[in-house]
């Protein structure tokens, strides 16, 4: 069973009871993700790619099927255990950056450390280290709104890296950025992948997807093709 994969999906279904018939967002997905791989998940809207990402991010549980992360069966875990998993092993990067506007950049980056129970002075120095890594070491007192989109996404990446996660989940990370900045963000992600992070990225842009090693095409809740 265990073939070294960090994530294993086995006939995973996700059903939303909506309207009269409900929606089959995932209709049987079987796939292994190897550690250190870089995946782009593509597909039209409604193809189930966001649902897949939410499942992989342990924000949701499958209706049926087996989903294990690092060997743990997710469907057996309660809300607290899922939170703990996200806190220790996962990092999120969103299309709209999702920084907390009333907090400084440093505080945003420190947030995962706060929940991990770090002392204030430790987390401040770690935040500085991470901010320097994404090239924003001199802006830590600023508010997110004082930054450009590209800079905000760098901060978001720094935050996602704060807990030194095994897996980075990116939901259209360049969706709100211009081409040049998108390129910068993608090279940052590629660099992180080379350093050993597993990255799973949802996108609908072909040239963004080309940065990944594998591309997964979804349609109507099932895997259409893998390239």
């Amino acid at each position, binding site marked *: 069973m265990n073939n070294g994969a960090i994530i294993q999906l086995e006939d995973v279904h996700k059903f939303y009871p909506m309207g009269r018939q409900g929606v089959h967002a995932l209709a049987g997905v079987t796939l292994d993700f190897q550690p250190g791989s870089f995946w782009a998940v593509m597909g039209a809207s409604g193809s189930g790619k966001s649902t897949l990402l939410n499942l992989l*991010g342990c924000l949701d549980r499958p209706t049926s099927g087996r989903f294990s992360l690092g060997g743990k069966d997710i469907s057996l875990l309660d809300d607290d255990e899922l*939170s703990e998993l996200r806190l220790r092993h996962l990092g999120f990067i969103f299309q709209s950056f999702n920084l907390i506007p009333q907090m400084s950049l440093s505080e945003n980056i420190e947030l995962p450390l706060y929940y991990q129970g770090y002392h204030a002075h430790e987390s401040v120095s770690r935040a500085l280290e991470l901010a320097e890594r994404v090239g924003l070491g001199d802006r830590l007192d600023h508010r997110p709104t004082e930054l450009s989109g590209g800079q905000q996404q760098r901060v978001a990446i720094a935050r996602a890296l704060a807990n030194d996660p095994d897996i980075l989940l990116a939901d259209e990370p360049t969706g709100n950025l211009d081409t040049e900045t998108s390129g910068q963000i993608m090279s940052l992600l590629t660099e992180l992948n080379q350093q050993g992070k597993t990255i799973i990225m949802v996108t609908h842009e072909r040239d963004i997807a080309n940065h990944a090693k594998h591309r997964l095409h979804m349609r109507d809740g099932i895997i259409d093709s893998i390239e």
Partner: protein
Amino acid sequence: MVLKVIRNIRIGIKTLMLHKLRSLLTTLGVVFGVSSVIAMLAVGEGASREALERIRKLGSNIIILSSEKPMEDDAATRETSLMSIYGLLYDDELRIKESIPYVIRTVPVRTMRKEARLGQRSMELRVMGTTPDWFDLVKRPLLAGRLLNIQDMERLAPVCVLTERGARRLLATQNTIGEYIRIGSDSFEVVGILEGDDGTGGTQRLDRDGDVYIPMNTALQRFGERILQRATGALELELVELHQIIVEVESTEKVEIVAEAIHAMLQRFHPREDYRIEVPLALLRQAEETRRTFNIVLGSIAGISLLVGGIGIMNIMLASVTERTREIGIRRAIGAKQRQIIGQFLIETVVLSSLGGLIGLGIGALIPWIITQAAGMPTYITPYSLVLAVGISVSIGVIFGLYPAVRAARLDPITALRHE
């Protein structure tokens, strides 16, 4: 652990500081509630303390009868007679002493205001004609010399006992026993000096600092029964036999029955109510009454304010949760557990309500002061009421913050993240 709580409180304060006015307005209900609670307790406490103090000073087993000019006298009698005759009689004292059970002793008092002088020095004193029993009742320590005794009464001796203040003014700091002072037009030998009080007694005690005591019989002989005094601009003659009769009763339990018996007896001999009966013990009951009334009024205000204040806080926190749905989603995605979200919002509400409690504490301490200044009512703020106020405000925060906090924590992270 403590450090973590302090850190969380700091974060909470920081978040609330983003909306200073909103936060301040939200706390108003708690402010009023808490200040009412403190004021209520202060007034109640003040009333019963005053009563207890008075009982402590007067004794719980005495009854004070005082002569009082009846109301109708002013209008009706003045035309027919220049002299108003009213008040307690010598016979009243005898009758009480002889016919009312449980009475240990009675002390008659005649009171006059007279100028006393020694050489160039003079002061107005309250001259009290009384019996040696007086000193047993009042128990003011003797500073020098002796008290009045039976022989003084029998001999109609022109002797007097001064209080410290009078002695200091008239004898000019020499506690000289044996000096003669003039009271009115008569000369009295100072045979004793009583200790002054600490000034806290006020009108609550039977005796005052500016008293001079002379034997009852001497008072009658020297000054007579008529008292000429200037009232509302006109000269007025009053005939009063006794100004006060102080009755000491066997035990505290019997005081109220005896007071009733005395009242019934006096009613038979006095067609008009020209006397007043005061039972210090009854003051305690009155104080309880005051306390109860205030508790009902202020308790209702406090209850309603706290309820409304709590609902106000809950309302704002619900709005805040909606406003910060996305933030909650982000925190959850990062790995915050539900109870950590609950903790975050709960701390914010508790900080908010505690702030209200603190402001309420300040205002609440001010209200009793104003009541005392304006209405002359005694108030007393007990430390326990402050502890209670803080407890109430923290509980309000927890009770009314719990629902919004739980709602925040129960949000589905995915939906919360998508929230605009």
